[in-house]
């Protein structure tokens, strides 16, 4: 892993992405792509800004978001917009959301934001909504229909009746492995809204859905999971090209279910283990996914990062900007009909790739 990250190579990589509409590692340009329809946006997620006291915040997490914002601003030409994929805060407090919003305000490109459970369960998204607006919405951009879902809701009983204080509710949901948590869901109200929203969209329009949790079921114990995933997938089924991009998992995942391509994004704060590394877990990591190599905890930013997302004729390629590992590119392969890692999918893994 001598592929050391530096500013010069990043600028070159970012430049080549934007300039030729493809990606720095293995260039994949779809033959039928109309250049006017291709565009790039940046995706930053899971900053987990964590308040200590007074004006003090956990420095490590601050540095992750500051770095991603600074680098996204270096993209030339600039991204059409920047998505923030949820979990801006750790415990949903105003100081955390304000501190994070202040960092995001330094982005040059327009910002769109997804709700994460760490933003939500203190005041049920009230302060977040003051800063960022509606918790679910849609917009159209260069022929693509984008949908932003709040996928981290759960039952009314858990949300309203189980916990004596909002603070405790937030703490219970904030522990990833906490058995007192509750499975995420989009919920009936939002699914009704989604059905109406999609009714206006022609079936050949590419659809990109942004959610915080995976709209698929991977491992319930850590909420790598959305309880009504199948019902949401059913609403997306009639469309020719559907892409779901999600945060929450702090690691690279990708999958294909029917017509729907799934891609996850990195966290800027810290990496998470793959569920199979928990020896007691029953889990369903998509077979397609080639896991990331180990994280080196001695390098503060290792196995964190952000991604440049290319949209070519409605399909997405994610270029992962990893700080201490070889960069990876995961994109839709039209011949195979599912996302692949452009470098790793077709080659045998090096024997020492998985190490501790």
């Amino acid at each position, binding site marked *: 892993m001598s592929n050391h990250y530096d500013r010069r190579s990043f600028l070159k990589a970012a430049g080549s992405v934007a300039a030729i509409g493809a990606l720095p590692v293995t260039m994949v340009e779809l033959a039928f792509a109309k250049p006017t329809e291709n565009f790039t946006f940046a995706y930053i997620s899971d900053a*987990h800004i964590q308040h200590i006291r007074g004006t003090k915040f*956990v420095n490590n997490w601050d540095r992750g978001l500051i770095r991603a914002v600074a680098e996204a601003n270096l993209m030339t030409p600039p991204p059409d917009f920047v998505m923030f994929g949820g979990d801006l805060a750790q415990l949903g407090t105003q100081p955390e959301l304000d501190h994070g919003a202040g960092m995001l305000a330094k982005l040059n490109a327009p910002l769109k934001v997804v709700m994460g459970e760490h933003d939500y369960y203190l005041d049920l998204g009230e302060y977040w909504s003051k800063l960022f607006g509606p918790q679910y919405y849609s917009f159209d951009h260069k022929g693509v229909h984008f949908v932003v879902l709040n996928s981290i809701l759960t039952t009314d009983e858990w949300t309203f009746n189980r916990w004596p204080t909002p603070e405790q509710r937030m703490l219970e949901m904030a522990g990833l492995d906490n058995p007192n948590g509750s499975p995420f869901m989009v919920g009936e109200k939002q699914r009704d809204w989604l059905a109406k929203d999609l009714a206006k969209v022609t079936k050949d329009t590419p659809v990109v859905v942004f959610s915080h949790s995976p709209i698929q079921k991977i491992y319930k114990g850590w909420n790598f999971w959305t309880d009504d995933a199948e019902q949401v997938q059913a609403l997306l089924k009639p469309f020719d090209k559907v892409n779901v991009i999600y945060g929450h998992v702090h690691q690279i995942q990708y999958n294909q279910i029917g017509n729907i391509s799934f891609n996850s994004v990195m966290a800027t704060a810290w990496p998470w*283990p793959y569920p199979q590394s928990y*020896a007691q877990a029953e889990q369903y990591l998509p077979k397609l996914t080639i896991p990331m190599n180990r994280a080196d*905890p001695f390098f503060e930013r290792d196995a964190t990062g952000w991604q440049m997302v290319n949209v070519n004729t409605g399909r997405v390629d994610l270029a992962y900007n990893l700080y201490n590992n070889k960069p990876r590119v995961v994109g839709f392969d039209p011949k195979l009909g599912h996302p692949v890692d452009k470098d790793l999918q077709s080659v045998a893994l090096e024997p020492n790739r998985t190490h*501790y």
Partner: protein
Amino acid sequence: MSTKIVGRSLAVAVGAALLLGSAGVRADEFTKQDMERWNAQFMQVVQKGRELWTSPELGKNGVACAQCHPNAANSHPETYPKFQKQIGKVVTLPEMINWCIRNPLEGQPLDVDSPEMTALVAYATYERRGVKLEPGKH
């Protein structure tokens, strides 16, 4: 379970057994109740370890072990002791835990034989039960 033993040559041993074991139990004799007690003792320490692992108080900045290591995953207790290149020597799991307490948790390291460290090691190891030992593995 009686310790009725006759024979002069065993008189000293008998005396010792009577002195030590008022319940009259030998090392190779234990009951279901014994095993339940030992397991309860162990699980109590595992539970204490789980509390510390998820506690914002272990370090100084509110960060908990479980934030990066849910269910202690990716702590790999079965690979220690091992050469940790970043530390430059062979270390045990408690030394690595102390590295984490000092750095991401910005706290003060624990004594390696403290009840707290024992509990953290017990919890991480318990969550990895059933995985084969691979000391030195990278």
